């Protein structure tokens, strides 16, 4: 049995060796989309490139939402054989760009008119020193709330428009024996919730001052304390088993009717769709009360690494394919996010997707489009993680609100 397996493995191995050695006509892509819809959608990109005669060498490294992949990337860059394209988010891209490790995509960008169709706030993360260095795949938005419509209807709850209505809804659900908020106890999830709450309390200007400009006064203000107080309310409305739960298991709680709401980015939509739920009929999507005008975003991008001088045709082809309207539509319909270019038709998107695209365009136009603090698009990784530490410690009861505010100021100053 083992002999047969070994021979089969040997044949497959030989085949793989002969076809996947990264030759000049190949792109090597490092990413962490190793399952589900994303992997399938990425496969579409792969086949698109293969149709153009460009091979795709896959280098998947899962774990930690990209943490392991970033470690591997460092090793590869230090060893001098960086991959062609690497999945990246926010400040990581800028950090690598500032190191001079990324390629200059201006030629492709000019040819295809990227500057005109990509929102400014997103461009800030795709360009370094005026040069395009990465190709944005999507725009996720993080200040969404997802709700089970049947549960809400059964308890006479409408879509809350402000904090008071929201807390009233939570109380109603609690009394009815339903977990008000489905939550997974991981640092980034707590930060995502805090992100939306902070935006609702501080407002767009306060949010910018605190998390983008890292202004100490705003970080230590009473408004921030109020944000932490509201976090404590959220904490009181999650079930006992929340610690360590993965985000998609929390979404499952809403899908099953065990819980009423989940505060999560729009990648949660994919879970609802996979379960055969229809937006507007089975589940609702709305902005967190107090943040209806704002969109806090994070965007997956593929940063293109300098392969020794000029941008190769393969790299350019990959970048071009990523930003093509057809790929943008196909991928984002699956992923739950909205396209990174504003000129893509919303015909294939469901109701929540259409809403997201509308909100994005509106927010970009009115100056309400902000990078999400919780997802590395407001401040660099060191600061983001420092904020994570404080928020998660507060959520888990280690600090009270006042201490949390003081710790926040301290942590950010150390991490800057």
């Amino acid at each position, binding site marked *: 049995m083992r002999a047969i397996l070994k021979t089969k493995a040997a044949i497959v191995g030989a085949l793989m060796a002969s076809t996947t050695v990264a030759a000049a006509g190949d792109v090597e892509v490092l990413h962490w989309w190793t399952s589900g819809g994303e992997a399938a959608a990425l496969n579409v990109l792969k086949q698109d490139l293969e149709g153009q005669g460009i091979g795709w060498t896959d280098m998947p490294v899962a*774990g930690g939402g990209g943490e392991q992949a970033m470690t591997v990337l*460092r090793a590869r860059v*230090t060893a001098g054989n960086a991959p062609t394209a690497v999945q990246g988010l926010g400040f990581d891209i800028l950090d690598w760009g500032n190191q001079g490790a990324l390629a200059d995509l201006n030629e492709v960008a000019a040819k295809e008119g990227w500057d005109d169709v990509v929102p400014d706030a997103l461009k800030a993360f795709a360009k370094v020193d005026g040069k395009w260095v990465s190709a944005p795949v999507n725009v996720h938005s993080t200040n969404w709330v997802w709700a089970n419509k049947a549960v809400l209807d059964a308890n006479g709850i409408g879509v809350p428009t402000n904090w008071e209505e929201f807390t009233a809804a939570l109380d109603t659900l609690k009394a009815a024996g339903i977990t008000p908020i489905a939550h997974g106890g991981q640092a980034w999830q707590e930060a995502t919730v805090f992100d939306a709450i902070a935006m609702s309390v501080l407002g767009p200007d306060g949010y910018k001052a605190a998390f983008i400009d890292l202004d100490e006064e705003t970080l230590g203000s009473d408004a921030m304390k109020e944000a932490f107080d509201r976090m404590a309310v959220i904490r009181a409305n999650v079930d006992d088993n929340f610690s360590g739960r993965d985000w998609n298991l929390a979404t499952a709680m809403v899908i099953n009717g065990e819980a009423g709401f989940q505060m999560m980015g729009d990648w949660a939509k994919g879970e609802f769709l996979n379960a055969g739920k229809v937006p507007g009929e089975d589940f609702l999507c709305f902005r967190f009360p107090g943040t209806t005008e704002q969109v806090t975003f994070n965007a997956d991008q593929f940063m293109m690494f300098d392969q020794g001088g000029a941008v190769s045709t393969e790299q350019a082809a990959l970048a071009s394919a990523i930003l093509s309207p057809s790929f943008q539509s196909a991928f984002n319909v699956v992923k739950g996010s909205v396209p990174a270019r504003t000129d893509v038709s919303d015909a294939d998107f469901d109701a929540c997707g259409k809403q997201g695209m509308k909100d994005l365009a509106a927010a970009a136009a009115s100056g309400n489009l902000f990078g999400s603090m919780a997802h590395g698009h407001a401040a660099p*990784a060191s600061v983001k993680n420092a904020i994570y530490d404080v928020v998660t410690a507060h959520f888990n009861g280690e600090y009270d609100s006042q201490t949390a505010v003081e710790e926040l100021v301290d942590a950010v100053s150390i991490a800057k």
Partner: protein
Amino acid sequence: MAHSADADFKTRLQAWIPKLVLSPSVAMMLVFVYGFILFSVYLSFTDSRLLPSYGWVGFENYSKLWRLSHWEISLKNMGIFAALYISICTAIGLGLAIFLDQKIRGEGLLRPIYLYPMALSFIVTGTAWKWFLDPGIGLENVMHTWGWESFRFNWIKDRDFAIYTVVIAAVWQTSGFVMAMFLAGLRGIDNEILKAAQMDGASNWNLYRRIIIPQLRPAFLSAFVILSHLAIKTFDLVIALTGGGPGRATELPATFMYSYTFSRNQMGIGAASATIMLMTIAAIMIPYLYSELREKR
């Protein structure tokens, strides 16, 4: 004594061959271990963030390190974890070895059962235990379905108790190996001494306490070395089991160093924490090594 030129050359060559044979390993060790350690120590004094950079900043990284409550938590967890892990593994290992040594039937079956956890990677161990310890789907749930409704075992989700779950999983993985070491040591003890003591009327308890266990000193020390080395390197298990959580309750220095170097883009602080780790290891290991190796002469 007179030697012919031939024998002279041959003897001199023979004197050099051992050193030649040893030299690749020594060279590799000097470069890839001690060279890298020095590099890491140097980095701790620089402004490295994403990648190594060489701007000197003195002790700034160290002062930042000690201001981080995260670091203190890691150290405290390390103390708890290492103390429990080493002592429990040794106790279980010794106990099982003593029992197995009693002419047990089925030793051939039991020994691989005790040893096999060591064969598993930490990803596998962490996944299995994470499941088992989860109150929703693991042991607590099983107890509930079996009728014991009030059974509670949610340590893995509890900030104060989560570190003990890491201890459980780690002990499960390595205590069998420690048992093998002690078993080997027990089997090497000279029976004549035991028989003589028995003739003098010593009880089993005394036999063990006075003769056997003291003779196991080398095994104790070897077990201590292997266990401390594993305790310090515990990284994969924590990542797979709890991810450092809940919150930061199961962070260890190894996971701290990893996250600060590779995902928080604060390589300087990561290197500083690594240097502290190495100094701690040195402080424990060097006295032991010195005493052990000195006796050889």
